């Protein structure tokens, strides 16, 4: 076969792409962990949350989160009878040390734990100009710190306010769903320490996971469903006033 200039121009890029895959090898997150066998999510059972802040403290400790920043936090809602669309929301220090007693007034009060929703169609990954944040094949949104520019596009794009810029590294940071734990067969730090079971890690690809029965038998919602982000943090018993 004669190598013409036309053929050379076609072959060279193809050879470069092929060589890249040869170099890449076959990395796997953990020895016995198969990326394609999981699709991670979380269930938050609002009526069970007591606002103790154990999840926030555990997350900070597990992930070395800087003081004053939160990968997960707890909000206390007060919804008065006549202002359902304007709830009063507070989260002192992210709820890390629990909540002080509140003044009893007409209406209802409840806690809502918040974290990254690990959206299947996440706006934050779509706006990253360098591919430093992404959805893994097992459904977790991660940040590649060594590749992040700290441009803050993703911080603005997240409709749930789940991202921040780490002041030490100047890179984007967020809940990783304790990826270093779940790939080792452990649950997340927040789920591990939740004293009432208000948070539960779920694997939607595991047919034996209790999440399937729970989703069938409960009225479950995600935050801001109108955003169509494919959020995978499911809230049970969530009031309509929750934003």
């Amino acid at each position, binding site marked *: 076969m004669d190598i013409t200039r036309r053929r050379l121009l076609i072959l060279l890029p193809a050879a470069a792409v092929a060589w890249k895959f040869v*170099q890449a090898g076959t990395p796997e997150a953990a020895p016995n962990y198969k990326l394609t066998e999981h699709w991670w999510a979380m269930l938050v059972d609002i*009526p069970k949350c*007591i606002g103790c802040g154990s999840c926030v403290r555990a997350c900070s400790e597990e992930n070395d989160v800087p003081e004053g920043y939160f990968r997960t936090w707890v909000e206390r809602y007060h919804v008065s009878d006549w202002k359902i669309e304007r709830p009063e929301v507070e989260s002192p220090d992210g709820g890390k040390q629990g909540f002080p007693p509140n003044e009893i007034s007409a209406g209802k009060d409840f806690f809502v734990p918040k974290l990254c929703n690990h959206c299947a169609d996440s706006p934050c990954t779509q706006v990253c100009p360098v*591919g430093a944040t992404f959805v893994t094949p097992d459904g977790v949104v991660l940040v590649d710190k060594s590749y992040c520019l700290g441009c803050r596009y993703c911080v603005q794009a997240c409709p749930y306010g789940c991202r921040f810029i780490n002041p030490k590294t100047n890179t984007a940071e967020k809940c990783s769903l304790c*990826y270093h*734990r779940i790939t080792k067969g452990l649950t997340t730090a927040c789920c591990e320490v939740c004293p009432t079971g208000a948070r539960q890690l779920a694997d939607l690809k595991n047919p034996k996971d209790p999440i399937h029965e729970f989703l069938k038998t409960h009225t479950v919602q995600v935050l801001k469903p109108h955003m169509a982000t494919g959020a995978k943090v499911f809230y049970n018993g969530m009031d309509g006033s929750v934003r």
Partner: protein
Amino acid sequence: MVIAVVAFVLLRTAVVPHSFGQYGHYRGDAIAEAAARPIAHAGHEVCEACHTDVVDQKKLGKHVVVACEACHGAQAKHADDPASIKPPKLDTAVLCARCHEANSAKPKGFPQVVTADHAGGLACDTCHQPHRPKIEETGQAKTKPATEAKK
């Protein structure tokens, strides 16, 4: 033209991380790096393997569902080296209140107290054994505080 294309391909191969594009528009190795981080919370199963006496106590009370590190904090380092790394002593007056201080946002069936009225400044473990908190008739305290909030 050919030289320019070759130069571009070579430069791109040199600059772009070798695992970029393996799973998508990102560095594939970032997944393994995220998974490789060490853990801080050992998990209750690890604690229970050694502290069987505490497990037996917890089984008798409602705190059986509370994981060890919910109160004791992250203990993976202690689990790795139990002889030299000891968990810190806990202050029950702070710890218990985080969960059990009365708050209108807490679920109505959850046991809550106004600690200032309930304990009068005493540490909770003066009367309650944290691993088995219900006060039994044969326990340290014989009477139930009258000021326990009914929530």
